[in-house]
């Protein structure tokens, strides 16, 4: 009886970790390009048909990777350096009741938004205040969710600042989102669709009623990439880029530059012996310095942060002057005609406006001292292309008729409501405070093609520098309209399935895991909604056969039963303990107890006492929260990479 096993040797292996979307990623491409350019033998493994099962550390440096292809052949590959591209999966430190079906990670939420018809009403809580969290919050608000809260921990954050850009925070505020600086106290179920999230700030405890909680993070500062053990040439790089760069320009930039830095590091370590490599060495050195400098650039907004200074609802005179003197803001042309205002005061790593401008009137300065956008106001023709291009809505157009009663502003239209010409709207400042009323104007002729993405408003001239958003004025008849014009929720694509002996409707062809979310019956085990079934937690019985819900498609007439839950999962549901490892039933207290009487335990010693991550999910659900707990216990293990083999359940069919 034979098992097909093939041996191979590489200098560098770039491997896809579990739940990576769109392979190869930006980072994988960068590393492989850099290493291949200097003549190293590079292997890139992942994606459809190729499944990386795990890595064994070498005694010295490098390791052995095990890969299974679609023909079930096993490839055993040795390499001097291995890079694991890891999926982002930020979970907060455990709090009471947090391990429940209500709390889902960002990747799951994104998938549900893109592919499902899940109802998020009435409210959503987002844990985190970085760009991803704020953008997600803005998305929900633009799509009609009434209340969206971004929750940031009070400790470890200076001056109650969000970790995202000011422009994203502004957009979120204008759309009506609320940023709360609180600590999480508990989560409990109120009804079948509503959960109570208890949070506490200096004023006391308050309860937020939400349909779901999305954990986005980041919850602690992360290094650019990890190497563990030190000197082992085994690295982990996080996938921060989306499929579409403009969805998350920051993430794209970060992953790309981090990969460059990591690639140069690997090249220097592996090629240190080569004597005939002077040209490559110089090139690698340039790449390394450039990557480091660009990464430093990307974090510049944290040091040169911009907090909009208010006096009541209005900008302070100094604040106004600061904004007016900003390089992306016109100095004089706006008094004569329409012109663009690129008000992203912080030095952020985004140049989508520059790319969109046909007149090259916007040019992002790469000068380290002046990273802001630079507007050549004379060249700006007010074509309007830059407004929809800016994902944060930081660009608008305006004509300040200071000597007239009213001036004109043109903003990016993102809200669901279709504003009509002549309609009165509430005017909001950068903090979403109500400034007054304005009127919707017809768009200039040359902007008519943007009638669905731009909106022109008449604002009192004295509010020209304060108003940056609008909101529909609610009338008493609005709720009636909702009743009269509510769309039928019947989806023609639905088929009937039997779920736990009851007939249910689910959309044909979607995964069962997603169908559970749409029905409102998602379980804790469905939280990760893996693209590749790697967590192995969501099994169900379909027509008598055990399958993973995330990998099984809905079809008419299927008989679905949930697998009987383990004692541990039942215990988790009954008890609000701070569970960390769901598979092994380990709480935060269990982990803290193992440090009593022992100081400076290494991560391996800790794992031998509490086997976190040795359960069915191989640490995919618990690794991040485990790190948070370790950090809280004073055991800083942020540099740890879990190299335990295998990365996910590996079934082998011997021939």
């Amino acid at each position, binding site marked *: *009886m*034979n*098992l097909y*096993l093939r*041996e191979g040797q590489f200098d560098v292996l770039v491997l896809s970790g579990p739940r990576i979307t769109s392979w190869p990623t930006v980072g994988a491409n960068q590393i492989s390009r850099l290493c291949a350019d200097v003549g190293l033998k590079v292997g890139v493994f992942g994606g459809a048909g190729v499944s990386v*099962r*795990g890595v*064994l550390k*070498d*005694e*010295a440096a490098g390791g*052995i990777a*095990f890969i299974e292809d679609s023909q079930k052949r*096993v490839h*055993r590959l*040795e390499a001097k350096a291995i890079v694991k591209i890891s999926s982002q999966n930020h979970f907060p430190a455990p709090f009471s009741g947090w391990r429940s079906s209500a709390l889902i990670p960002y990747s799951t939420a994104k998938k549900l938004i893109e592919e499902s018809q899940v109802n998020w009403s009435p409210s959503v809580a987002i844990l985190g205040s970085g760009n991803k969290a704020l953008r997600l919050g803005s998305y929900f608000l633009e799509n009609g969710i009434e209340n969206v809260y971004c929750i940031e921990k009070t400790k470890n954050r200076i001056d109650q600042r969000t970790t995202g850009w000011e422009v994203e925070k502004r957009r979120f505020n204008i759309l009506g989102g609320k940023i709360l600086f609180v600590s999480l106290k508990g989560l409990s179920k109120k009804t079948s669709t509503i959960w109570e999230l208890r949070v506490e700030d200096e004023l006391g405890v308050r309860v937020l009623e939400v349909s779901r909680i999305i954990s986005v993070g980041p919850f602690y500062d992360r290094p650019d990439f990890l190497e563990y053990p030190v000197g082992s040439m085994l690295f982990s790089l996080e996938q921060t880029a989306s499929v579409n760069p403009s969805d998350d320009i920051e993430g794209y930039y970060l992953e790309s530059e981090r990969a460059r830095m990591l690639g140069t590091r690997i090249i220097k370590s592996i090629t240190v012996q080569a004597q005939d490599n002077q040209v490559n060495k110089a090139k690698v050195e340039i790449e390394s310095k450039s990557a480091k400098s660009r990464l430093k650039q990307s974090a510049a907004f944290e040091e040169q942060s911009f907090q909009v200074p208010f006096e009541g609802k209005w900008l302070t005179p100094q604040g106004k002057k600061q904004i007016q003197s900003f390089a992306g803001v016109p100095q004089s042309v706006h008094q004569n005609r329409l012109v663009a205002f690129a008000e992203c005061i912080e030095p952020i790593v985004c140049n989508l406006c520059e790319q969109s401008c046909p007149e090259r009137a916007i040019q992002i300065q790469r000068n380290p001292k002046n990273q802001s956008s630079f507007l050549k106001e004379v060249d700006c023709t007010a074509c309007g292309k830059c407004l929809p291009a800016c994902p944060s809505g930081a660009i608008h157009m305006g004509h300040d008729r200071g000597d007239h009663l009213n001036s004109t502003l043109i903003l990016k239209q993102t809200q669901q409501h279709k504003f009509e010409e002549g309609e009165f709207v509430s005017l909001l400042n950068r903090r979403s405070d109500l400034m007054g009323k304005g009127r919707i104007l017809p768009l200039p002729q040359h902007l008519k093609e943007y009638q669905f993405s731009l909106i022109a408003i008449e604002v009192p001239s004295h509010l020209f520098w304060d108003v940056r958003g609008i909101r529909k004025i609610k009338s008493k008849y609005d709720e009636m309209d909702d009743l009269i014009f509510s769309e039928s929720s019947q989806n023609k694509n639905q088929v009937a399935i039997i779920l736990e002996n009851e007939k249910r409707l689910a959309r044909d062809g979607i995964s069962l895991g997603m169908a559970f979310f749409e029905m409102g019956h998602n379980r804790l085990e469905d939280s990760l909604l893996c693209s590749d079934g790697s967590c192995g937690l969501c099994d169900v019985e379909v027509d008598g056969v055990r399958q993973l819900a995330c990998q099984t498609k809905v079809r008419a007439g299927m008989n679905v039963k949930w697998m009987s839950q383990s004692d*541990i999962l039942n215990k988790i549901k009954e008890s609000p303990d701070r569970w960390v490892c769901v598979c*092994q*039933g380990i709480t935060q207290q269990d982990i803290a107890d193992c440090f009593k*009487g*022992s*100081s*400076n335990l*290494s*991560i*391996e*010693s800790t794992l*031998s*006492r509490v086997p976190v991550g*040795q359960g069915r999910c191989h640490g995919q659900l618990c690794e991040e929260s485990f790190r948070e707990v370790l950090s809280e216990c004073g055991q800083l293990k942020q540099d740890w990479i879990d190299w*335990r*083999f*295998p990365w996910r*359940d*590996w*079934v*082998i*069919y*011997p021939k």
Partner: protein
Amino acid sequence: MQHKTDIVLIGTGLAPLISAMGFLSHGKQVVILNPEKDYFSENSEFSLDPLNPVDSELTIEKILENKSADVLNKIKPFFPGIVEYSGLQNTKNKEMENFHDEMAPHVRERARIWVYQKQDLKQKEFFESLYIKCLDNQIKSQMLDSYQVLKFFPGHSGILTEDLSGFVIDDFCDYDVKRFRQGLYDFIQEKLGPDRFINDLSGIELSSKGIKYYSRTAEKRGWSSLMPNDGVYVFWTPKLTQWILKEIKNSNSKITKDDHLVLWENWSLVSRERLDHSIIGCFEDLIVRSEIDGHPGYDAHQNHYRLSVNRPVMKVKAEEYSSTDLDKRVASIESFEQISRLCKNVLNWEKFSIRSFDSQVVFKWHKNQIESYEKYPFPVFTIKGCEGPIPTVLKSVKQVLEMSL
């Protein structure tokens, strides 16, 4: 500034800890120096005596040494807390008559079965002779055929395809190495304190002025020195080999051509069947049993579906050992094929799931002994044979203590 102490113990694993306990109980001042960041990273101890078939270790003497009650009596004096015993007769009872500390390290009585092909006459002859020796020594044993083997082998699906025979003895044991380690580590660390129990060191140097070392821990980074009054004991494990050969030159401490290193693979598979935890199975060079901690009858957190498979992959002469050889052999095709044979031919599983894997390298000394080196003002001893099954470790430590005290 140079610190003084009586004894310095250099090494990792249980042996230095047990030695420290012995020295402390006789009023000696002890310092433990460990070059590794994690004290147990080398993983030198086994949770049972493998009776390595490759080494022809399966002898009646070895079987007698591994009787569970005897092993328990050997271990108890060397552990500061309770050591519980889990016998076969009461494994199914959750409630014991007397108090039973579920979290204490356990010595578990298990039966052990060796399975072989019926047509293999050489094996048959070997086990028949062993059976007779067992009878002579009053060890209960049986020779089994076919379906009787099924009843015993852990993880068997109940379907017989190969014609197998078996030999079983009813009194063998395994033990909770992790719990022993943790308990002893916490105890000794508390006794010695961070100043005398030092991990994560580099540059340990022996000289006539004492022992100099560089600590890499954040709290105590920098050079320190010690002057041991009564001696330095170095517990020789593979990771310390280079240091020993470099620092203790021209001594009796050498590697001979009869000394070997054995690479062990430890696989964890998911069993389709609920496992019988009362027996350890052996098939060719594989040792198969259910992975449990503590008392098998204590159901909380017990996963009765994890099958542990241990395999000695290669045995190399210690003087020829290189880490690249190890890389080529660890989790190689031979291992996968051997596991496949186990699952297909013996357990009758159509597929197998790997849950985890790790490897360990241990010495197989021609002679477990203590060697001394007299070059310095203080005696330096290297101890061979301080790894492997816990009783072997205890034997070495006992020799150290008897020699010194």
